[in-house]
């Protein structure tokens, strides 16, 4: 946006842009919700064969080992062309967790299928009774010789019904105090006997997530990541990365483009009051890009980006919502239409992205929880 590319970055940008133009199917561009796996995974695999699926992973694990600026160039070019939102549970969550805490055998077994897209992962943290208060989770895993027996359920599991494996937080010591000291981090094969999965339809009309029931499911003990009862630390260690991932400015940039097209089509673009809000929104997108690259730069320098990542999460998610609020305002009477709106500049989805954006301040730690974290852990306010 306001960085000037070095000559090397400029040529990388040209390469990425022309490759995307040639390889990203038109049907996958500017999608507002995540396309289903039958449509999305072939694209994932195309990116993978090109070697571009994991820019932030080190080369030894099949990543690109890209520099920060190369990662940003990628992000910007993916946004420009309207590339779809990829499943991130493997790439951004369990992949990095296994690189840091997994055994060599676990890395060997699980990392390559993430890179080639042959296995889809789900995150099993939330439960019906444990949302923001995750440490109260109740799904039991009882160690029985060489295996765990898992009983309980997980909910709001993104792509649960499309996934092959789940990384889950389970209770292995029911009496531990504090409660989070009795939680372990395990890997569950979702094709195991005793598992039932129920997709859940969202307000945006898609089946983004699911409820997963475990009825005495057998999980080999070797699927434990790290030590027994050490799951809380592992889950939290990489939360910073997760929060960063959800605030990638790619989504904000796409939303901004959609607003401009819609505002031109309805003519509201000429209204000075609207222009003022559009400028404010656009300036905030610029600020988000700056914040995001600032945060990525700090993590790349291996300075720990702990609770500060909450700031990027709040800013990015609330901005995305305000952009979508501006979108329905730009759309005027089209705001509540279920189908995408045909305009002279192309078809624009309005209601669905607006509805879809309501989730971003809830998942990955709600905005309220992030503010609690900032107040206590960064600003050191009293309890």
């Amino acid at each position, binding site marked *: 946006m*306001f960085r000037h590319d070095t000559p090397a970055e400029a040529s990388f940008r040209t390469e990425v842009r022309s490759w995307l133009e040639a390889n990203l199917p038109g049907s996958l561009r500017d999608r507002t919700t995540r396309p289903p796996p039958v449509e999305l995974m072939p694209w994932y695999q195309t990116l993978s064969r090109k070697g571009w699926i994991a820019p932030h992973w080190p080369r030894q694990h099949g990543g690109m080992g890209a520099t920060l600026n190369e990662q940003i160039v990628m992000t910007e070019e993916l946004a420009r062309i309207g590339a779809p939102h990829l499943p991130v549970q493997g790439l951004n969550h369990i992949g990095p967790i296994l690189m840091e805490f997994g055994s060599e055998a676990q890395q060997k077994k699980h990392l390559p299928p993430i890179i080639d897209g042959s296995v889809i992962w789900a995150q099993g943290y939330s439960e019906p009774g444990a949302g923001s208060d995750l440490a109260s989770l109740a799904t039991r895993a009882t160690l029985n010789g060489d295996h765990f027996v898992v009983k309980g359920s997980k909910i709001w599991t993104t792509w649960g019904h499309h996934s092959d494996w789940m990384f889950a937080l389970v209770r292995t010591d029911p009496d531990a105090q504090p409660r989070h000291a009795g939680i372990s981090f395990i890997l569950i094969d979702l094709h195991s006997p005793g598992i039932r999965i129920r997709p859940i339809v969202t307000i945006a009309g898609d089946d983004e997530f699911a409820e997963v029931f475990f009825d005495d499911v057998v999980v080999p003990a070797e699927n434990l990541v790290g030590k027994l009862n050490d799951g809380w630390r592992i889950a939290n260690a990489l939360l910073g990365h997760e929060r960063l991932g959800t605030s990638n400015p790619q989504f904000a940039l796409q939303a901004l483009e959609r607003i401009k097209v819609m505002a031109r089509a309805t003519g509201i673009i000429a209204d000075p009051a609207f*222009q003022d809000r559009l400028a*404010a929104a656009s*300036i905030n997108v*610029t600020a988000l890009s700056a914040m995001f690259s600032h*945060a990525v730069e700090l993590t790349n320098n291996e300075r720990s980006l702990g609770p500060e990542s909450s700031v990027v999460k709040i*800013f990015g998610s609330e901005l995305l919502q305000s952009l979508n609020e501006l979108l329905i305002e730009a759309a005027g009477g089209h705001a509540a239409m279920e189908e995408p709106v045909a305009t002279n500049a192309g078809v624009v989805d309005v209601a669905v992205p607006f509805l879809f954006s309501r989730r971003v301040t809830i998942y990955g730690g709600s905005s309220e929880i*992030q503010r609690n974290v900032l107040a206590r852990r960064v*600003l050191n*306010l009293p309890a």
Partner: protein
Amino acid sequence: MELNLTSEQGLLRDSAAKFIGAAGPKIARKFRDSDHSFAPQRLREAGELGWLGILVPESAGGLGLGLTELALVLEQAGRGLVCEPIGLAAISAAALGFAPKPLPLLSRVMTGDALVVPALQERAHGDDPLEPSTEATGTGTTLQLTGQKMFVCADGADGFLVSASGRDGPVLCFVARDALGCTLQPAETVDGRRLAALYLDQTPADLVSPYPSSRDAVDALYNLSLVALSAELLGVMEEAQRITLDYLRIRKQFGKLIGSFQALQHQAANIYLRTEAVRSLIFQVAGNNEPWRIDPAMAAAAKAKASEDALFVTEACIQLHGAIGFTDEHDIGLYLKRAMLLSSLMGNAAAQRRRYVAIAGLTA
């Protein structure tokens, strides 16, 4: 979030922080109640530290550093409510120093012996900096200017860098304080400083020789002003935040520290959020632009965001203090007033957003 600085930049920031250690609310109050806006001796000290020539190329006797360094110093100046016009002097020196043939005055501006400040703004809501209504007539390097500028930080200034429309477009000129036909009409600001209207009537002026054209000189100085004001606003936000967080940690009501109330914790988080967004934005703009060629859309974005968020933050800080925050006795009000001043100069948030719509091609 911590900035990723080189060790030299870290040292520079530390020495700026040390310099402002001797400033702060007490000194700001002293100047508020006196006829002088600042201490000339302190400006010369800033000159000795090299800060006034921070952007001036080494070939012209400056430090030849970039916008990041300027922002680091001005951020501290904002934190300390510094009264000496370090930012104005530094950007004026830069504008003089970018010229292939700098005016002889440059070296005295860099030492702080002479003060030159920009005089670009003509209307309350900012304006197109490249189409000033002030007129320049004549040819060669000595021109005559007629027109009027507003909100000039003229106190203690020996001269001004004035934008005007010449035969071939905008030009940047130096006008001496005591030049013929140059009059000032000062008025007090809320924080006890003064801003003046500057009237020029056939006033002789020296053309600041163009780099590479005089149009660019006007543009460069204008965008530099926006970045400089934004960096200072960032410092104001930071210190207001610090003072307020301290208060939340000591004030008790209902038998508890008020900082333990969630509503206040969330507002404190909002203050932090705004401050960090401004910090990331300013240092990205600073890190990615050359001082004499700042992307105008980026400068407008920075000033719009810093202006709006500094007011949000300092207003919220008053609220979090309760009645004590409403008193003149408490320092937090000084930060609100400094934010009012800096955010209003050179086009407030709304004015910069209006420019941004046009420059960034949002409606195209």
